[in-house]
């Protein structure tokens, strides 16, 4: 059973009265536990939208087609309320964004502990988990520093620590190396790979960077709101089935 799987995923955004954007046109995807998957594609391909739906930030559109399906660990999450989705994001998922995404008035440790707070973990337990997570990314000694006192790469590592602290089932990263130079990018990438290889952390990331894509187990390539290539290796039976499903 896949950790996270979806079918008939559509999403249309209304930008203004007459301007709508069909970001996803019907996508089927399946993420196995322990996989590190990259989603790549040109601008407007729908990769970020797919990430947002997999991350329960938005719900898939129910209309204009067959009913969408989305399951996390076997549970149906396709049509949950905002509150329910928020709870799952807090407790079972971790997020890393492109632009550092730390709260500027909080220290590194407090930023990490924020995730604990939202997941209902408080006090000593949260502090301990926070320090541990910072340790895993090599920033235990910078726990009391504010984001302004940290470099870009360090801030991104704090964000990763925050994504990990609740031991989530899956981590979703939207262009985690987008704003970093090549050296810092490599550092962050190595960290993510380490968590995937040694701790079995499932990771899905959206990226422009081919090198980042290469470091993953597979690359899902998208274009114009659909998946063109599921990235499975040819010798896997799933790949053969999947390539039949991809429209010409």
């Amino acid at each position, binding site marked *: 059973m896949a950790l996270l799987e979806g079918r008939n995923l559509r999403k249309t955004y209304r930008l203004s009265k007459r301007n709508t954007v069909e970001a996803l046109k019907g996508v089927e995807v399946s993420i196995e536990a322990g996989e590190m998957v990259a989603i790549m594609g040109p601008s407007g391909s729908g990769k970020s939208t797919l990430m947002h739906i997999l991350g329960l930030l*938005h719900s898939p559109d129910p209309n204009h087609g067959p009913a969408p399906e989305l399951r996390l660990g076997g549970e149906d999450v396709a049509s949950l309320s905002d509150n329910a989705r*928020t709870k799952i994001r*807090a407790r079972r998922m971790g997020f890393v*964004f492109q632009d550092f*995404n730390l709260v500027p008035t909080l220290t590194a440790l407090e930023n990490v502990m924020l*995730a604990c707070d*939202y997941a209902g973990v408080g006090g000593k337990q949260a502090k301990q988990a926070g320090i541990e997570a910072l340790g895993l990314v090599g920033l235990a000694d910078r726990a009391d520093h504010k984001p302004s006192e940290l470099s870009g790469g360090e801030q991104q590592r704090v964000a990763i620590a925050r994504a990990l602290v609740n031991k989530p089932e899956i981590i979703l990263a939207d262009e985690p190396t987008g704003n970093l130079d090549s050296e810092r990018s490599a550092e962050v990438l190595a960290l993510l790979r380490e968590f995937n290889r040694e701790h079995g952390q499932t990771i899905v990331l959206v990226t422009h960077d081919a090198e980042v894509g290469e470091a993953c187990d597979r690359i899902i390539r998208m274009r114009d709101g659909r998946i063109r290539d599921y990235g499975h290796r040819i010798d896997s039976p799933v790949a053969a089935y999947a390539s039949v499903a991809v429209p010409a």
Partner: protein
Amino acid sequence: MRLVRDLARRKLRSTLTITGIAIGIMALVVFGSMANKMNALIGGGSKYYAGKDIVSIGSMFSGSFQPLSLSDVDKIEKLDGVAAATPGIDMMLDDSTTATMGTPEMISGSVPGGDKGLETFPMTASTGRLLIASDSGNVTVLGSDLARKLNAKVGGKVALRNVDFTVVGILAPTLTAPDKDAEVPLGAAQQLFVKTLPPLIQSKVNAADIATSITVYPKAGVDAETLKTRLQSALGGSYTVMDGKDFDAMLGSISTIFSLVLTGVAMLSLLVGGLSTVNTMAMAVAERTREIGIKRAIGASRWRIRREIVLESAVIGLIAGLIGLAIGAAMTTLFNDLGRGSGNVLFELTLGTALTAVAFATGLGAVAGFVPAWHASRLDPVTALRYE
């Protein structure tokens, strides 16, 4: 606290907003203290006049009146339901007293013990003693404010209407009219009073026989209102009988209007401060749109986001309330100290007023945050994250 760090992000803006509310709270504290004092004065009077009737000819409040005769006292004492009737003389200490806020300074002549022990209004001497029946001649017990103004000490002398009196006691503060009174034996008051009458009338009147009012105490089980009607019919139309309800009717409305006007002014200035806070929080939410997006994305519920904003704006209110209270308290203390010398202590800052002021400010702050908080919680995480 973490909240204060967020406030410190925008020091100038936070300071301006806090100042706005603080000014409103300061006004509330100062005006509220004035209203407290006014209520204490009038409340004290209300307490005094409850349960007894005052007989006079004409009304002291309407200006000219005729003096009563002591034979009226005998007549009243014989009436059914009267436990005691005692004559009194009240006159202004100084004819040229300018209108002050609060009660005027008076000379009050009475017969100690004339109430037969029925007087319930508490009056005690802080130094010296109260007047006793055997007192005669020019002795006086001064109210606390008047004593301070005249710089009087027990055993010393003060001049009341250009006549020297020996001070035998100083009253403990009552927070109402007696603080500005000079109590003297009836005989001494009669002598002083007669001198205020026009010369023609002076020659016709027997000084030892006059009173300006008679205080009537009802027997147990008889209420003052019933007795008032009885007195009125027994004495006839030229006499005025006033009971506690009349006093309340006369002055109660003054007290209410006073409180309302003062509180209204303070509330208005607080409204301005409150609106300024709404604006500040709206700006804070707009500036922290990305931050709110991140928090929502990593699992903060809408309720959490609302709570954060409302708490922050409540803290603005709390800080402003404490500052406003501190400044208001300093001002009332200053004004009281300045006025004490001339006997005008016009402000009473009670614990109730202080707590109300701070609680109100905090509540105002919290409410000001409601709408911006609601907007913040409705932000879509993804859109908020991308906000430039």
